[in-house]
Structure formats: C-alpha cells, structure tokens
C-alpha cells in the first residue's frame, strides 16, 4: 500500500542532484577553481604558501566582518555601520593608549567593548524603536565615523610595542595569526548557523518574521545578538588591522561594509533574507581575493580588477536566477 513507487524515488533522487548541481555555491566553486587554475598556470608565484598566507592576512578584516554580515542578511537585515565601527574602535584604541595613557591591554579591551556598544545601539534602534536596519545603520555609519573624527581630530597614534605588532604581523604555528583567528570565527559562525536552534531561527526570521514571532522564536533577542556580534567582529578586525598597519586613522575601514556585503551576496545569500550560508560567503571572499591578487600578479592594474568584481557580482546573481529557472524546468515532474 505504502510501497514507494520506484519511479517517484528515482525522480526525487534526480531532482535532489539537479538542485545541488545548480546551487549558487556550486557555481561559485566552479568559478573559483577555474580562476585559480588559470591564474596558477599563468604565474608560478600564485600558488605558493607565502603568497596565499599573505593574501589571507590581507582579506582578514573584510572576511571577519562578512561572517556576522551573513547572519544579518539571512534575517533580511543589513549593517552599513561596520566600516565606521571599525574606524571608531581603531581610534578608541589609539586614543586611550596614547593620549589617556591607559595600558595597551585595557585599551584593546575598551576598543572591543566600543564595538559591542556600537552594535548594541544599532540593535536598540532596530528592535526597540522599530527603525529599519538600512536607515538605522546608515545613520550610525555617519554617527560612529563622526565620533571617530571628533575624538581623533585628524591625529594618529603610532609607536605601539612589539608584542602588539606581533598580532598583525607575527606567526603562530607557522601561519599568520589572522588565519587562526579567522578559522575560529568561521567554525563558530558555521556551527551557530547550521547546528543550533538559534541559527535555524535566523532563516525563519528572514523568510517570514511575523510567522517566526508567532512560532515563539525570540526574534528581538536574536536581532540584538547578531548586531552586537557584528559590532564585536568589526572591533576585533580593527584591533588586528591597527597591529598590522602600526597606526590609527579615523578614516580606517570606510567602504569596508560594501566589500563585506558584496562577498556575502556573491556567496549566494539572498539580500531579501531567508537563504544562504557561511560556505557561500567564504567562496565569495576567496573568489574576490583570487581575482584581485591573480590579476595584480598578471600585471593588470587594481582599478581594472574593481570593474571585473562588479561584473562578477552582477553576473553571479544573473546566473543564479537563470539556473533557478532551469532547475524549476528540469525538476518539474511531467
């Protein structure tokens, strides 16, 4: 009676394979592999451990910010203020250490707390007051950058001790510190998103917030958490960045939010929320950086790379739309 029709079973298996093959992640993976192969054959310096680990420390800041950005975009929100939180944290770090004479350890902690507060303020306006995330973070983008400008008055901090500079430039177990920090961040975010109730509920919020509320998901608490997480990640990235470039400036990190969003969207996370994942974001980041680095090694100017990235960003979404349409056609059981 309930015997499964072998033909139906066959259809289902076939449909699952088609769905997998045509997912944005698969497209990206193929694109990235092609890009890596082409660039590696064009230049022998490309696929060296030295070049790759240098590239990871260059992409570190945007990557760290893109992790919580993925969570936020999955819920249908957006955070434009991360670049400004980045700048503000850097300035707070430099100011407290150099001008106020705080111990550097405490100044670092204060910079991280500053990121958390920045994220919490975003969360407050989004959750409590009900201002849309785009507007809230547009306003705080100006506000945090403005406070950073006001505190720094265009001065910069310099002359950090060696142990601090070691974070951004030193190595641990043969790899830059950035790789380890990023790895921990990726594992935590990935586990959160795909293995916890919290992570699943973010998708529910992105698909239908009202339904999520009625299903008893703590929508407000979750929003607070992701925006605070975003602020913290931006501050952490800023601390490591200051250590790498050995100075602080109030315009640090401007435009960084768009880089992070581009990577997330390129990675197949829908800007309307409800779908996506960390794996896609990582692929997006890798593809962008591979293109940048590879073209630079091939002697193409950085500005041309920016054109290519813009085209890839739009084309990836177009391809995805096309494949989704194809998938619907192919999986339709006639």
């Amino acid at each position: 009676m309930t015997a499964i029709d072998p033909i139906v079973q066959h259809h289902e298996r076939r449909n699952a394979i088609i769905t997998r093959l045509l997912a944005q992640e698969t497209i990206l993976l193929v694109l990235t592999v092609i890009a890596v192969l082409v660039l590696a054959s064009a230049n022998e310096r490309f696929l060296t451990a030295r070049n790759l680990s240098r590239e990871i420390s260059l992409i570190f800041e945007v990557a760290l910010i893109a992790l919580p950005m993925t969570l936020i975009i999955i819920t249908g929100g957006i955070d434009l203020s991360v670049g400004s939180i980045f700048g503000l944290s850097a300035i707070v770090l430099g100011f407290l250490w150099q001008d106020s004479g705080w111990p550097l350890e405490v100044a670092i902690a204060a910079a991280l707390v500053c990121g958390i507060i920045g994220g919490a303020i975003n969360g407050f306006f989004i959750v409590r007051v009900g201002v849309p995330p785009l507007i809230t973070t547009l306003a705080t983008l100006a506000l945090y950058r403005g406070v950073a400008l006001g505190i720094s008055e265009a001065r910069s901090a310099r002359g950090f001790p060696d142990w601090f500079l070691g974070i951004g430039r030193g190595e641990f177990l043969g790899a830059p510190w950035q790789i380890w920090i990023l790895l921990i961040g990726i594992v935590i975010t990935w586990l959160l998103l795909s293995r916890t109730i919290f992570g699943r509920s973010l998708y529910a919020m992105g698909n239908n917030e009202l339904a999520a509320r009625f299903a008893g998901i703590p929508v407000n608490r979750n929003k607070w958490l992701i925006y605070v997480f975003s602020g913290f990640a931006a501050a952490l990235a800023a601390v490591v960045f200051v250590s790498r470039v050995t100075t602080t400036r109030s315009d640090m990190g401007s435009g960084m939010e768009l880089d992070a969003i581009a990577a997330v969207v390129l990675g197949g996370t829908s800007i309307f929320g409800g779908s996506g994942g960390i794996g896609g974001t990582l692929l997006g980041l890798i593809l962008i950086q591979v293109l940048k680095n590879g073209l630079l090694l091939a002697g193409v100017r950085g500005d041309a790379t920016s054109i290519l990235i813009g085209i890839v960003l739009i084309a990836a979404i177009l391809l995805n739309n096309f494949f989704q349409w194809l998938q619907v056609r192919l999986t339709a059981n006639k």
Partner: protein
Amino acid sequence: MASLSGTASVTKTANRRVRATSWVTQESVLAISIIVLGLVVSLINPNFVSATNISNILNNSSYIAIAAIGMSMVIISGNIDISVGALIGLLATIGGRLAVGAADGGYWIGWAYIIPLCVGVLIEGVIGFIVAYLRVPAIVVSLGMTSILRGGLILWTGGEWIYDLPRDFMLAQQQVLGVPVPVIFMVILTIIAGLWLRYSPAGRSIYAVGGNKEAARLSGISEKRVLMQVFMLNGLMVGFAAMMFATQFSAIQSTVPSGLELLIITAAVVGGVSILGGTGTVIGSTFGALLIHVIPNAMIFANISQYWQQAVQGVLILFTVLVDLYRRRRQSYGRK
C-alpha cells in the same frame, strides 16, 4: 441613538486629531527646524543670515538636492541606488573632458552638458533593465555598478585632475538676476518633479508600485515599465547634479567623491521618503538636503569644532527619522 451619537463624537475627535496633525508633515517639520536653527545661530552670530551665507548654503546643497530628487523616486518605487556617487564622479569627468576638448577643438560647448546627461540616463537605464527585467535586487546591481564605475573612472583618468576648464563651461558659478544657477535648477527641478509625482498618472504609479506591487499589477500598471522610467529619470537627475558638481570649482577631481551616495540617500530619508517604498515627496528631500548642509554651516558660525560635524549629522538623521516614525504612529492612531 445613544450609541450613534457616541460614534459621532468619536468620529469628531478623530477628525479633529487628523486635522490637527495633517499639517505636521515631514516637510513642515524640516522647514520649521531649518528656520529655528537659523534664528538660534543668528543670535550667536548675525553673519549666519547674511545674503552671502544663505546663498552659499543654497548653492552647496543644490547638487545633493537634485540628485536626491532622483533618489527619492527610486526609493519610493521600493528600490535603492548606491551607484549615484560613482556616477556623479564619472559624468563630471566626462563633462570636464568634453569642455576642455570644446575649447581646443572648437565644437559646441553644449555637448559637454548633453553627453553626460545621456550617459547618465543610459547607465541608469542598464541598471533599471537588470532590476526590472532580469529580477536582480537593485541594491546588488547598484553595488556592482559602483565597483565598475569607480574602477573604470580611475582606469580612464589615472586619478589626474582636470584643470584648464573653459570659462563658459562654469554653469554653476553664474547667476541669473542675482540668483546662482544651481539654486534655480534645484527649485525648478523640485517643483517639476514634485508636480509630476503628485498629479501625473505616471508619477502616481511609482507610488503604487512601491506601496503594493500586486495591487499595482492588478490595476493595470506595468511594474517593469515604471521601474525603467524611474531609473532613467534618476539618471537624468544625476546628470544635472553632476553638471552642477563639475562646474562649481575651476578643477574637477576625476575620482569619485566617497560617501556621496550616502549623503544623497540621507537627504531623501531625512526628507521623509520611507525606505520601505510607497511614500515620500521630493519637496521633503530638497529640504532634507538643505538641512544636512545648514547644520555643518551653522556649526562653523557657532564656533563648534568642525571635527564633530559628521557626528552631529548622524544624530540628525536618527532624530529626523525618529520624529517621522513618531508622527506616523500618532497619525495612524488618529485615523483609528
């Protein structure tokens, strides 16, 4: 009977409430805050309300206001365009190069205005096409376009500034009857766009598409055509803004002024254009553009450190958005 008269009195108070709040629009709130701010600062420093300074403020805010008209339409239709800053940079450079060429090669200087306008409409038309027909979200398309335009501009110019601009190209530095040309453009374009949005069927359908796509479709409005129209008009406005931007100084920077798109979006949002689409006016966005220029100017006259300007601007955006939110909530309660 008793219940009927009860209902009547409830309706009456509701009516009074609506009447009492109907003049409290975002536009009037903005106008009043600009005036109050002006009065307070002029008490501290009377030079603030001098004709030169007022003309200065109007002049500086005009290109933001003009670009914000286009941005308002885009946002009202339920979309957003991040690429306008990059586009202004590109169009200004095209105009500048053509003007220099006109001075050397002897072709008509008017091309230096017409061609950038056409390029603006064309590029925004491409964005509109991808958004409307290929169904890619506007934020993604314009993000990609920003990257393309920014890279393309630097690749083209190599970051070189344009200096030897001919004198007759300097449209923004001229005056008609003592009024600077950019201000005239700002006022005329605001009035035309405001009337068009409010009274023409094409203008109304932008609100319809932004307010409720499905309802708009059912009432026979082609969403695709409306979106194409909106983006191309935005390109035209960005073109005008770029011309005002290009001709205000005797040199053109040839790189994209960073953060310009956010300033333009801010002007629209401060002006009461809802980011969710469907509501807002261009009169509001023009007042918004004025306000975000009055504040830093007032700070200079009130002797406040200019380093804090941007922070104040951020607080201002939050504040006006909160006022707008509060007002809308009051009004929706009043209607119940």
